[in-house]
């Protein structure tokens, strides 16, 4: 089987990292994710999961890996279930090796749902090696507390103490203009549920919670619905938006930073002062941070 290589990058230097974007039937956020990596200075390579299973060595050549949003296989059975099952079965060891050599991985929305089921997030504890087989699932992305799909922009808070390379510098960059720190969510199953309270405590303590909803944390008990809060639209435990592995390189989140690469995607940009719309958007900052991190490993 031949692989499909789509380089949407234009004039990057040959040393620019290559982002491997894994798509499946029903993936539908791959084009905007490719644009994000391109604008951030990477080459992109969109590969169908069937082609990747046929040629897993492509993962060895990737310097960044993206698992985009969408409805892979229709999200039949549950969100991301079938891709996750295929990754565990065919590609887990290659992906684990890629993470081991410092390859940043971005798992957004459906990609996040896939990553928690495929054993890629939250990954082993600090200082622990990646297991040879996917470990026991520690996080789930379950039905939104409201019982249905929600599309809205939500304020998010970057955790300054997080080890995440994707959100590095985000809090400082937007400290003076919090209204810019928003991201769009669009999902039916985005409520973070942990296997036990211990998992949440461990992730918090090890700096693996990279982003939280809203500006004020709402503590909660795993499995119990938190009172619905406009800034936590799915009822996620501990207001968690996104988590990374202990190395900070594998990052999963429900909102879509790749939909926020231009200032006029902000939900009320027509009323933001010019000064608040300067420089890179929060989405762009994340992709640039990751491309920088990828470059460091390459050099």
């Amino acid at each position: 089987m031949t692989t499909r290589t789509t380089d949407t990058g234009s004039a990057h230097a040959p040393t620019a990292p290559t982002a491997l974007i894994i798509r499946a039937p029903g993936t539908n956020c791959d084009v905007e994710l490719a644009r994000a990596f391109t604008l951030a200075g990477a080459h992109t390579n969109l590969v169908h999961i069937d082609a990747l299973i046929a040629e897993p060595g492509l993962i060895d050549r990737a310097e960044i890996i993206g698992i985009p949003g969408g409805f892979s296989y229709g999200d039949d059975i549950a969100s991301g279930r079938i891709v996750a099952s295929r990754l565990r079965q065919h590609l887990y060891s290659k992906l684990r090796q890629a993470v081991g050599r410092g390859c940043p991985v971005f798992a957004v929305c459906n990609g996040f749902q896939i990553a928690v089921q495929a054993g890629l997030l939250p990954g082993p504890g600090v200082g622990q090696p990646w297991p040879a087989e996917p470990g026991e699932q520690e996080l789930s992305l379950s039905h939104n507390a409201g019982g249905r799909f929600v599309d809205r922009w939500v304020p998010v808070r970057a955790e300054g103490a997080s080890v995440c390379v994707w959100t590095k510098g985000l809090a400082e960059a937007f400290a003076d203009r919090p209204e810019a720190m928003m991201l769009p969510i669009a999902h039916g199953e985005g409520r973070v549920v942990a296997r036990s309270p211990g998992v949440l405590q461990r992730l918090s303590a090890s700096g693996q919670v990279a982003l939280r909803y809203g500006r004020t944390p709402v503590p909660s008990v795993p499995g119990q619905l938190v009172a619905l809060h406009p800034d936590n639209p799915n009822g996620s435990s501990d207001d968690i938006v996104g988590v990374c592995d202990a190395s900070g390189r594998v990052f999963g989140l429900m909102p879509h930073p790749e939909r926020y690469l231009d200032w006029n995607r902000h939900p009320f940009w027509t009323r933001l002062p010019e000064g608040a719309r300067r420089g890179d958007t929060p989405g762009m900052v994340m992709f640039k941070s990751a491309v920088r991190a990828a470059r460091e490993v390459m050099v």
Partner: protein
Amino acid sequence: MSLSTTPAPATPPTAVEGVHRFEVFARTGHADPVSAAVTRDALQLLGIKAPLLSVHAKHVYLVQGALSAGQRGWIAEALLADAITEQGVVGTSAIPGGARVVEVHPLPGVMDPVALSVELAIREGIGQRVRVMTGWRYDITGADAEQVQTLAGKLLANPVIQRVSFEPYTPGAFPVGQGHDQVVRSVPVTKLGDEELVRLSRDAHLFLSLEEMRAIRGHYQALGREPRDIELETLAQTWSEHCVHKTLKSAVHYAGPPGDAVARRTRPGTTAKPDGSAVIDNLLKRTVAAATHELIAEGVDWTLSVFKDNSGVIALDENLGVCIKVETHNRPSAIEPYGGAATGAGGCIRDVIGTGLGARPIANTDVFCVADPSGFAPGDLPPGTLHPRRVLTQVVAGVRDYGNRMGIPTVSGAVSFDDRYIGNPLVFCGCVGLIPRHLVHGQARAGDRIIALGGRTGRDGVHGATFSSAQLEQNAADEFGHAVQIGNAITEKQVLDAILRARDARPAHAGGPLYTGMTDCGAGGFSSAIGEMGAKLGAEVHLENAPLKYAGLSYTEIWISEAQERMVLAVPPRDIEALRAICEQEGVEMADLGHFGTEKAELVLKFHGSEVGRLSMHLLHEGIPMPTREARWAAPVAKATPAGTPAPHVKDALLALLATPTIASKHWIIRQYDHEVQGMGVIKPLVGPGMRGPSDASVLEPVPGSGLGIAIGCGLQTPIGDPALGGDPYQMALAAIDECVRNLVCVGADPARSAILDNFSWPSCNKPENMGALVRVCWGCYDGAKAYRTPFVSGKDSLNNQLQYTDPATGAVRVIEVPFTLLVTGLGIVHDLAHAITMDAKAPGNSLLLVGQTPETLGGTHYQLKFGPSLAPGMRAIPQTDLARGPACARAVSSVIRAGLVRSAHDVSDGGLLCCIAEMLIAGSTAGASIGARVDLTAAHRDPLLAAFAEGSSRYVLEVAPQHEAEVLGKLAEAGVPCVRIGQLDASGVLTDLSGVLSVVVNDLAGAWLAPLDW
């Protein structure tokens, strides 16, 4: 029903052959939002507040195959259940004490997309080939048997597509359907009399008129043989109203009241008769289409394809075109709203994909017309109809699930409520796409292979085209259940991925796309798609080559099935292998059905080598008789209403109007749609700091980073055309076009680069009064499009929208006709996204200006609909649209917006000026921080009632910073456009009127407006 045969799996020694049952449900101690949502809906439906009632939802999977205990465990625990939040069990979980069970499964033959995915996962996971059926089990506690029956029938299942049982359902084996014998049948027609022809047409679901049946009889008498069944079916599909728009393309004899200025205007193709009546030789061609062709002749040079293709195309820039199409899917949505709306969306998306040599869909639109749910108790419904709350909930879910899964943002829409939509709701699905300009035209060539891509063909959707051309009757669900389908969006997404790859496989200089022509399989299935593509060439089709969902379909069923997610491509033989490779990589099934080009340009149908049908393309496409239709129009007289009811206080009226469902916030719907996917959304459907303001239109940046935008909006002014209100469909068309243009202008689009589409949904046009209304609305489309210089680029009509039923109380036959409905959808270019603006009030201190003339009447307004009896008779005339002032206002407002002089703009429409300002304030506020305004209603009109609630066309409210006010007023005056300052924004959080008559807190306005549809 049986699947095509597959090799028998290697069966482990301990495997048990049979149907294995699995259930998945929320683990004890874990939240269960799915059950909570069903419980909430159940309480709402039963109209009770019973804290004891609860519904526990369990997903059921039935797996037929040979499975060992270990494999069953893997399926339940590893594949089906979430590791943390769910429990998966093999077999049937215990029924809790006191609970009653409702279990729902799709009927055999109904699309079950989840089942297909589970089959794939089991095959990959444990190497077993199995068959799967999914379902839901609901354990209901706290309800009696009757309530459970009600819930099953009205909430949990639709018997048209689902099987309901009141206990867990585990069959011994999956049902097997009956095959057809494949004998070629002739249908005796040549010797039939007229009455027998009429009966044959109805009984065989051909829905052809007597004239059409006579034409067929004549044709076969001349041939000296009887038509074969497949030929008759092909004619019925191709000649259906749905496919050929025969009513709108007919000649019409129109008789109206003497001295009517509208009828006397000069229009092409219209001949005045001595008795004052007129004959129009082809209604569509001489009105909607004529306006476009005349505008093109007059210099509108930015349309790329109009009326010819599956969608209309206009230029975006020198490289790209934008295509747009809006379809109706009314009949299927009436009997199965979820599947009807989803396949409506899917079909319209395929229209865009199948435009020219392939477009990429970038946005969807949806407009629904339904009865007001608060107006009907569950027991009051006409027989055979669904409750409007269920209809609306389900059509929204259908559009949501299809659009979201396809990854196409649903960005624009409207919902209009009128009780006459009770049996015949209207569902308009639109799609916008992006296409390279050099690929706008395609044409199959003789010798090209006929290639079908995508979904398999089944019995689902047989007779959709003819069904949609008939009126609905109360037993429609029984008679036409097979016309209704469930879509599979992922199959369509895969087809899209494959087609775009085949399209872009080679640059133009190296041969371009791997195909020469393409169309989608919509109404009529292969019969229409291949018939259209081969209209000039002829085609030979080998029906046995179509991949089937299950064995046993007759060749006629294969030919006319409207099974979803299929496209037909004309592929040169040398490109077949390259296309096949792409399809294999994308997981898309491809079938070679034959070739285009036959000796006499005939349509030749074969099945396993035997000829089963042979038809002249000329008969198919030119043979339909087009009798002159009779149209009558009498100036309607508004129904007398008792005078003298005291008018409500202006504040109460405002709050009541904001809470009427047509005006109230649609956030409940909009938030369920992914309106951001593809990352192009610049102006979203909900705007402002609280992200709740109702945007006039949406703006996208189709090429991210280009700074060039498109705006998508619509106009719908049904009351203006309602004879019961004294309305006139001619004025309705003008008002809808004006509203659509206003909506586009308000977000920054250029009205001189805006195209529009028409969608008529009309009751039966065999009634001359309804045909008369259709003539008038078409005249309005012609005059309006010419005046605004907005070409129609595409459109679609849906006729016979009426419900006929027998009143169970009186035994009388009743017909409910839908109101004359014209949806105008607009697509406008935004030259510079930096000048796109939103409607949310921005800053205290800014001025509010009213552009346009306040009409001298309240006719056709929401105020009239709500408080009609309090209106003086002189206030009941419907407002007229001024064809000079309307376009002038649009141009002038657009020019000040595009000069960067306007902070926010909102069109004055449903509810009038006060509702418009209220919406701007609600949009500019959040729950915590409100903006306010002080307005002088007398500046709008000396009569405060007219100032506050008149609607009418061509009015806008602009928010302008003080330093720009004089400049804006000056520019508008220069353009001859009326404009007055009517107030100023402030930080009070209150909307007040200078006269002191009105003072209302914006938070209260927001509460009234947000609550009614917060489902």
